[in-house]
């Protein structure tokens, strides 16, 4: 098997996520790469939802247009997802008919073998792994790990049901798929974007998180809460998002690295706090998980509609960092970088994610923990000469920082315009100085930014530009187009503000076309480049709440540029 794609569909509350996750883990341990996206509705039970799992021998981070296998846990869902299955594909469900149909009585097996229909999921897991030719031992182990948290009996029953279903499926069906082989397993991991951000926060020295639940970002605080006994990170659910950001500003002022996470509506409520962080030069890291807006919009879907908002949110003018991770590894490392940068420059950092990044399972080769190095950006009280100035004017705009209470030095911060000591002032000469001080940081901040650009990309015909979670998809598109004869390169921005632009983009005689691919209506990243003087040759936008597929983008480009 080189690549197999599976949809597991069913109602909310049926546990399709468990089915998908158990399969994914088992396959991962056979040495494959995994990518899985979750498509669900804003409800708790019923309706339509799916877990889309792609298994591949190569790294993967995008979804196909059509899938190989549909596993349906719910009759009413089957017809909805059937159109997404290849004509060569198969459908596994309780009942149905047709050549490509494999009937597995999930519920009956669950009751017969496990004594309860709640084991239907295990039955589905068994059936699919049978079809995939997975080594059952792998499934058994994962089931044991997942369910022995509840009880050994539950774990056992899950295993029994899965095994039965596995055996039956193997027995009754001539395999239609090249089986999952046993490849080398170098200890890869799968985790969601949110889990990865949370892990990055732990690695980045986070000590306090406060947030108010909001899809698709809730997973960050949930993971940090679940692991808080091990990490010692203090977690507090706030009464609202305004409290959340103000609490972390307090904690950060006191001296610890602090985090919050939300979505667009909650971020809107944090905007005044963001400007407080900026004015008081208190570092904060804010995760803004985008979903389709305006207002409540589509809570469980994906979009990249809040770049401009993140860039310009908050009263008054101040510099900030904006990062937009492309996948789990990038989420992990950018979270660490976010903490480092916010501490070093005492500015707010916004991490833009979206439902596609946050809820998807990504394969990670290695986080390379050993390479993580955190710097302590606090000064030593004994090194401070004279009366301490929270906002001392320096060449770089960065002032010394101390923790209140640590020494005789008093730390004074103010949301009003202030003098170097932090006291309120209406002296307009100081005002001017302070505006310039805050902006002086921009120069060094810009030096910190990395934009990864393929060697000789300017020799391409088309350069696809994307940002954030579209990185994997767009790089795949570049590969497809190049293979078809149109030399295409892709550049994905994960470090967005301060913006760095490859000089080749400005070349008046450049041969390559710049096409910007974004999950929004107005082309926000394209606009950002345009503002800096880059001519954009084409924009590809999607705004129905779903992520792009490579096929879709390839199709658009073909349409627009009549490329093969």
């Amino acid at each position, binding site marked *: 098997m080189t690549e197999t794609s599976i949809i597991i569909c069913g109602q909310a509350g049926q546990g399709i996520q468990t089915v998908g996750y158990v399969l994914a883990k088992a396959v991962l341990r056979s040495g494959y790469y995994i990518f899985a996206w979750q498509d669900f509705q804003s409800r708790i039970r019923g309706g339509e939802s799916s877990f889309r799992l792609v298994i591949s021998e190569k790294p993967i981070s995008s979804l196909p247009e059509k899938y190989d296998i549909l596993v349906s846990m719910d009759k009413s869902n089957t017809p909805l997802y059937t159109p997404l299955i290849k004509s060569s594909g198969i459908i596994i469900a309780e009942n149905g008919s047709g050549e490509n149909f494999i009937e597995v009585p999930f519920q009956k097996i669950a009751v017969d073998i496990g004594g309860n229909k709640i084991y239907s999921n295990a039955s589905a897991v068994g059936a699919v792994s049978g079809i995939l030719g997975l080594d059952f031992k792998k499934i058994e182990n994962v089931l044991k790990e997942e369910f022995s948290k509840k009880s050994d009996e539950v774990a056992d029953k899950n295993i029994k049901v899965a095994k039965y279903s596995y055996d039956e499926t193997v027995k009754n069906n001539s395999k239609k798929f090249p089986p999952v082989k046993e490849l080398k397993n170098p200890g890869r991991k799968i985790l969601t974007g949110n*889990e990865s951000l949370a892990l990055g926060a732990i690695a980045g020295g986070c*000590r306090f998180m406060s947030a108010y639940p909001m899809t698709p970002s809730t997973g960050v605080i949930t993971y940090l809460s679940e692991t808080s006994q091990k990490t*010692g990170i203090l977690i507090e659910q706030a009464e609202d998002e305004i409290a959340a950001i*103000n609490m972390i500003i307090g904690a950060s*002022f006191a001296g610890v690295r602090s985090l919050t996470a939300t979505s667009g509506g909650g971020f809107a409520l944090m905007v005044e706090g963001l400007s*407080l962080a900026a004015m008081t030069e208190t570092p904060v890291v804010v995760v803004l998980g985008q979903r389709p807006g305006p207002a409540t919009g589509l809570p469980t879907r994906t979009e990249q509609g809040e770049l401009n908002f993140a860039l310009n949110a908050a009263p008054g003018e101040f510099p900030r960092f904006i990062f937009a991770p492309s996948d789990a590894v990038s989420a992990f490392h950018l979270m660490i970088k976010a903490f480092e940068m916010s501490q070093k420059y005492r500015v707010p950092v916004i991490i833009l994610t979206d439902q596609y990044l946050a809820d998807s399972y990504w394969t990670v080769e290695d986080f390379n923990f050993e390479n993580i190095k955190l710097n302590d950006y606090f000064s030593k009280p004994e090194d401070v000469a004279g009366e301490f100035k929270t906002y001392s004017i320096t060449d770089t705009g960065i002032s010394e920082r101390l923790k209140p209470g640590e020494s005789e030095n008093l730390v004074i911060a103010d949301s*009003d315009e202030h003098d170097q000591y932090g006291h309120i002032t209406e002296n307009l000469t100081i005002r001017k100085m302070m505006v310039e001080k805050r902006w002086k940081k921009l120069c060094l901040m810009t030096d910190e930014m990395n934009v990864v650009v393929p060697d000789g990309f300017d020799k391409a015909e088309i350069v696809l530009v994307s940002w954030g979670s579209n990185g994997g998809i767009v790089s795949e598109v570049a590969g497809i187009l190049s293979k078809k004869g149109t030399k295409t390169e892709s550049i994905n921005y994960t470090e967005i503000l301060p913006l760095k632009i490859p000089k080749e983009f400005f070349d008046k005689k450049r041969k390559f076309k710049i096409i910007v691919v974004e999950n929004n209506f107005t082309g926000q990243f394209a606009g950002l480049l345009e503002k800096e003087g880059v001519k954009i040759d084409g924009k590809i936008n999607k705004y129905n709440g779903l992520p792009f597929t490579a096929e879709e983008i390839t199709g658009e480009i073909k349409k627009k540029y009549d490329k093969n």
Partner: protein
Amino acid sequence: MTKIDDYKNNSISAWCPGCSNFGILNAVKNAFVKLDKLPQEIVIVSGIGQAPKLPHYLKCNVFNGLHGRALPVATGIKAVNPELTVLTVCGDGDFYGEGGNHLLHTFRRNPDITSIVHNNQVYALTKGQASPTTELGVKTKLQFDGVREEPLNPLALAIIMNCSFVARGFAGDLEFLSEIIVAGIQHKGFAMIDIIQPCVTFGVHQSPWYKDKIYRLGNDHNPNDKEAALKKATATGDKIATGIFYINNKPIFPEKEINLTENFGTDKKVLTELEKSFC
């Protein structure tokens, strides 16, 4: 022992001459002396308004934040460094108006901080609009036909919400006020001190008017008696009680008092352990 002068700074006040805010400033300083708190041990978090300028006229650590948002900032500070003595200083608009939701939930959260509310029954800094505690019928530029909304009773609200420490002070009774502040700071848990603070510029009533009516709660009042506290807080009539109305000892937030500010970086062993669950 610290002295009053240890908290003195040389800023020039932006308060009106004769304002009762000065009395509160002195009471706060007195309380610090009585408690022998070093300036460096104290953090005052304030909002925006006339009253919240107070920490600029003191020597201590200061975080002067946004209008209405002092409580969550103070909560964050105290949560990660329990060794600090954390106070908030707010106006009534600040604390009961814009910041009302934080108050409601801080009662429940119960961080070990002390909140001083300068209740002058007006939005002073924005030039005299009604605040949540302005009396019915009072006319202002904005409430041109007089205030229509019932004034909020902060003490009754705090008591019914099981606030850990509830008191009322009077800016004109420096001695008692500083005693109350001392008790509030010493109390483990969220201590709310509403202070009657006559405003010489916009105020309906001035200090002499209050002086006749105000009395100190005596030993006959048991602050552990919620019902009695509520009765005092909702009492009508000519007399205004000051003192500690209610004390309710209960777990604070966070329960474990750990100074997280001393805790830098992350143990890679923990990371490696967590990572395993994803393999």
